[in-house]
């Protein structure tokens, strides 16, 4: 029986000719990632277990992005602990304020992830790097500690669901609409323990930024990882960023899938996830009148340059509605600078938006835009759980950057065609 893309990558890293779904393996790691929330717990575990050095100083990344620039004394203490550990262990890829960005935007941008590699990260959205054909998955702090110490992790080999993308998406349809549509269709546990493998003729219409958004939200369907076939779009992206050699894996012709879905991209409409689960999706024509208090455009899901460019296309020459706070968060320093050079900041500021330093910030209710009781936000982030962005009785609606921008202008949820 043939193997899926994910199974081939895992087999190669476990030193095996083949693996099958359900098999327990130990695999070698190409990168181990942590942030300022999860790394301190990993450091405590690492030290308590008596380890004194990391397995490879070039294969550990620590990114201080969640509560930075530090929002309070406790988070400053956590960042200090990370900074000291990175210094002691001579961690090459340590990103502090001034160099940092939202981790899952930063690592691909820096060329730290490549096709065929195995990456674990103590952050659930580590699945993002499947966009470039890597196997990457979120783990906890203990796995991060063990990974830093040994360069290996245990995995149960996943089965897979295949998504065959066809057709050309309409002008305002982005990767966010595609993945929200899929999560709405299969549910928040629709891919539990499984890989989500994306391919098909429609792939060529999805940019790397679209694919990063989609792979990022595989976890919101319960998936172990999301992974894309590598094509010319991927190679063009990697050529500018990755010097080392990498291996491109393709699924076998006879690979077995638990399910195969055909997704016609040309039939998709702008899609919004209602509180309090990403599976509660409605297309833009079904949303009704939902008044808003805040709009957030950013995060590891949609804080990349293309996202900001599309939002700016909507904001240009327009102004946000009265009483709407519109917060734009470029995901990395490079994205921030590029957006500024392109003149997007003027467009945003003329429209009445504010521009934040890179941070995860409000996405997880950390800082930089917390909601009061009863308030509603439209956000380009990935989760709308109870209390995610603030008060347990606040609400988060998930959408693409163009829908978020159009909604900020109107003051209620609407599509880009309505402005």
């Amino acid at each position, binding site marked *: 029986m043939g193997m899926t893309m994910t199974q081939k990558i895992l087999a190669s890293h476990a030193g095996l000719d083949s693996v099958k779904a359900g098999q327990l393996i130990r695999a070698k790691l190409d990168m181990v990632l942590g942030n300022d929330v999860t790394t301190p717990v990993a450091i405590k575990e690492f030290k308590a277990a008596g380890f004194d050095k990391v397995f490879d100083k070039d294969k550990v990344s620590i990114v201080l992005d969640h509560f930075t620039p530090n929002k309070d004394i406790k988070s400053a203490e956590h960042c200090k602990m990370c900074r000291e550990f990175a210094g002691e262990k001579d961690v090459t890829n340590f990103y502090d304020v001034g160099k940092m960005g939202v981790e899952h935007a930063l690592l691909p941008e820096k060329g730290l992830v490549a096709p065929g590699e195995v990456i674990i990260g103590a952050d659930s959205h580590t699945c993002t790097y499947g966009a470039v054909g890597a196997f990457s998955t979120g783990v906890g702090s203990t796995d991060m500690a063990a990974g830093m110490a040994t360069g290996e992790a245990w995995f149960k080999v996943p089965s897979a669901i295949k998504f065959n993308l066809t057709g050309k998406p309409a002008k305002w349809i982005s990767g966010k609409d595609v993945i929200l549509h899929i999560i709405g269709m299969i549910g928040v546990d629709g891919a539990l323990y499984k890989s989500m493998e994306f391919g098909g003729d429609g792939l060529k219409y999805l940019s790397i930024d679209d694919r990063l958004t989609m792979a990022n939200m595989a*976890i919101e369907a319960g998936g172990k990882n999301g992974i894309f076939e590598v094509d010319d779009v991927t190679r063009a992206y990697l050529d500018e960023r990755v010097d080392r050699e990498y291996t491109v894996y393709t699924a076998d012709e006879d690979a077995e899938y638990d399910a195969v879905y055909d997704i016609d991209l040309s039939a998709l409409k702008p899609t919004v996830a209602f509180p309090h689960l990403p599976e509660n999706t409605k297309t833009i024509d079904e949303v009704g009148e939902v008044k808003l208090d805040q709009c957030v455009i950013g995060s590891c899901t949609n804080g990349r340059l293309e996202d900001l460019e599309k939002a700016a296309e909507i904001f240009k020459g327009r102004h946000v509605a009265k009483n709407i706070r519109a917060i734009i968060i470029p995901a990395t320093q490079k994205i921030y600078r590029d957006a500024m050079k392109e003149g997007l900041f003027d467009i945003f500021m003329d429209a009445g938006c504010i521009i934040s330093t890179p941070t995860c910030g409000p996405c997880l209710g950390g800082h930089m835009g917390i909601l009061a009781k009863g308030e509603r936000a439209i956000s380009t982030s990935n989760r709308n759980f*109870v*209390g995610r962005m603030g008060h347990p009785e606040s609400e988060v609606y998930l959408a693409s950057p163009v829908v978020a921008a159009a909604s900020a202008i109107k003051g209620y949820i609407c599509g880009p065609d309505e402005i």
Partner: protein
Amino acid sequence: MNAKGKVHKYLDNVDTDVIIPARYLNSSEPSELAAHCMEDIDADFVNNVKPGDIMVARNNFGCGSSREHAPIAIKASGIGCVIAATFARIFYRNAINIGLPIMECPEAAENINAGDEVEVDFDTGVIRDITTGREFKAEPFPEFIKDIINKNGLLNSLK
């Protein structure tokens, strides 16, 4: 090894943001995390929970963030075992890795009620609802995972 206690029951898709809201993630101290465990969906939990109590939920327990603070908060609150129909995969790994006993058993998750007295035998996988007299059987862990649990967590198993 076993756990015996009163049941705290929840429904589908209990996410890690409600198990321990991110506003408390500026701490990694188990006791501080436990003080806020479940507060956004069950404000009384921290007052009602007693050492050895059992948490029961339905599908996809622990979905969302990879924060190990979630199983740490549950463990530090005194919960002796979590039973669910299914667990989100990162939570499942994290619970094993830190030594919080968990059991996947759809029948138990469906039929055990809030407030029931329940006893769990980790070696046999037998879950007994003392209040109703019903018995359920969970799949035992594979040997590989038993080894991690028996050595009191992943890092100890690597030594």
